[in-house]
């Protein structure tokens, strides 16, 4: 009987959250953007021939936006709009995969570290201190340079840089929850540690992580595009937004559209995730609902 009640409560909670979610216009807007780019990432190579990124047509180069090329053409005569459509797959997938991996690693390590405390906590935190002591972009750059320029190495470098942040925030959350009365009460009732961690501390500490992860997808997208912008992304002929911006930087005053539209794509895609993350924070944190 008690179980059914709990389940009913959960269902109510979720549908209430969804209702709050759908009421927030910015969140709906963000979701639409994310759905749009996700569809683009999936069907992009079907509606645009992927081979166009390797075709050079110099007679068509540096054409300003027109009815024929809505976003203009780049210095190799390729249509910017088509390149943006093709680039969606790379930028979307690398951000999602990096954040997912980094979150899983960071949450596991951070919650163990924060809850167990003592020597293990000290060692793990010193280790993340060492990793965090390196400026993220330089560290990722050094790693990508050392490992060699490829998509997999870009993913490895970004994940290695990103997980420590989750570990520290999770640890901080667990530490602050640990001090709270309800955990102390659970402890004094003799409930085993791992149960307290999973049943009581975790659900309360996971909200900021979930919000952060959603917003970090946008952040990772910016970093991936940034690394690609300074020349550490995939190969130059693979369509990717950061690389296109880099191409446009050389023609900034002559053909600003080359860097403008791909940048707009990075901005809006990242904004979509951040809008959702921001709305999630309001919905998931019951203290902010009042």
């Amino acid at each position: 009987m008690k179980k059914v009640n709990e389940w009913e409560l959960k269902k109510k909670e979720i549908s209430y959250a969804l209702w709050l979610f759908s009421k927030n216009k910015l969140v709906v807007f963000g979701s639409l953007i994310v759905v749009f780019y996700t569809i683009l990432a999936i069907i992009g190579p079907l509606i645009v021939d992927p081979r166009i990124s390797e075709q050079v047509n110099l007679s068509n180069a540096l054409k300003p936006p027109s009815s024929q090329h809505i976003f203009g053409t780049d210095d190799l005569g390729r249509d910017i709009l088509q390149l943006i459509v093709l680039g969606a797959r790379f930028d979307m997938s690398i951000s999602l995969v990096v954040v997912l991996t980094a979150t899983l690693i960071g949450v596991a390590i951070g919650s163990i570290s924060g809850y167990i405390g003592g020597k293990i906590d000290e060692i793990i935190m010193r280790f993340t201190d060492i990793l965090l002591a390196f400026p993220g972009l330089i560290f990722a750059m050094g790693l990508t340079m050392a490992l060699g320029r490829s998509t997999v190495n870009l993913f490895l470098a970004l994940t290695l840089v990103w997980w420590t942040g989750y570990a520290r925030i999770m640890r901080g959350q667990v530490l602050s929850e640990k001090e709270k009365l309800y955990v102390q009460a659970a402890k004094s009732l003799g409930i085993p540690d791992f149960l307290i961690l999973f049943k009581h501390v975790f659900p309360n500490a996971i909200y900021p992580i979930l919000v952060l992860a959603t917003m970090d997808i946008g952040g990772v997208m910016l970093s991936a595009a940034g690394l690609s912008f300074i020349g550490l992304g995939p190969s130059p002929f693979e369509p990717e937004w950061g690389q296109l911006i880099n191409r446009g930087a050389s023609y900034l005053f002559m053909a600003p559209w080359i860097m403008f539209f791909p940048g707009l794509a990075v901005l809006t895609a990242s904004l979509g995730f951040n809008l959702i993350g921001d709305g999630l924070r309001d919905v998931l944190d019951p203290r902010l609902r009042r």
Partner: protein
Amino acid sequence: MKLYEYAVRRLFMLVPVVLGVTILTFYLSRVVLDPLAAYVTERTPAYLIPAIRRQLGLDKPFYIQYIYYLRDLITLNWGWSKAGHMSVADAIATFFPATVELTIVSIVITLLIGIPLGIISALRNNKIEDHASRLFSLVGISMPVFWLGLSLQYLFTYWTRVQGWFALPSTGRYDPILFASHPVQRITGLLILDSLIQGNFVMASDAFLHIILPAITLAFLNIGVVTRLTRSSMLEVLRQDYITFAKSYGLPQRIVIYKYALKNAMIPVVTSTGLMIGGLLGGAIMTESIFAFPGMGWLSYRAIIFNDSNTIMAYVVLSAFIFVLVNLIVDLIYAWLDPRIKY
């Protein structure tokens, strides 16, 4: 435990971190990157290479090399910088102040805009001001900094000139022609400050015009972070019992907000500002290279192009030390502001 005891303990705790950092950078500079690269070109005769290796101590076992590495690190003997055409220590002494200056200007802009926006958002919760500032800060967080830099450069150095209005300088830290006629003695290395000390207002305003675009570029993304943090922690604090109590006690709204709420709401903002400073002092690689602003980020971008491992590793070690120190300071301020934290 007293706060200063905590500080001393934390300083001691830094030792393993710093050693860990040096071990990692040693590994990166000696194993992953080629330590010979700075001293050898294609035209170096092959028979000289063993001698160069011997001179650099590369023929010794790794633990001896590490001790040499530590000794060189402490004595500022960081080798030759291909990217800076001088010794690495000189290059850092030359370029670091520019980054410090850029960091200060950018953080001042960030806080001046971010904190008031956050307070307004919290006080006008869910009203039009709140939604506007929310959208603005989310756009800031989502902004690709290199794209923003390029766009600002296009707008304020090219487009406004085409329109015949004004033009901000697009690259560099000062106008060299102006500098020749209005020389500034180097005192602190912060160009604006040095010019002001010497009463050289021409150079001060020129340096300011040069720094404003990169500073805004860097501030733009941090403003969003500060605004959201101020808002959310302000909202959280305003719901606390002691605020309700202060209100019901009849204290004026102004005092409740600025004296009781803001001070506590600032704790997360202090932390994140500290981390921002730590990150910015490490050098904003993309922003500095777009605006050719001769700071640490610009130097390291050039070092990457030149495959200049000496400069890269010195830069990595230095920014790591800065970050660790800033972290320590942030934690101390945190402990001082929030007595509930156990140390």
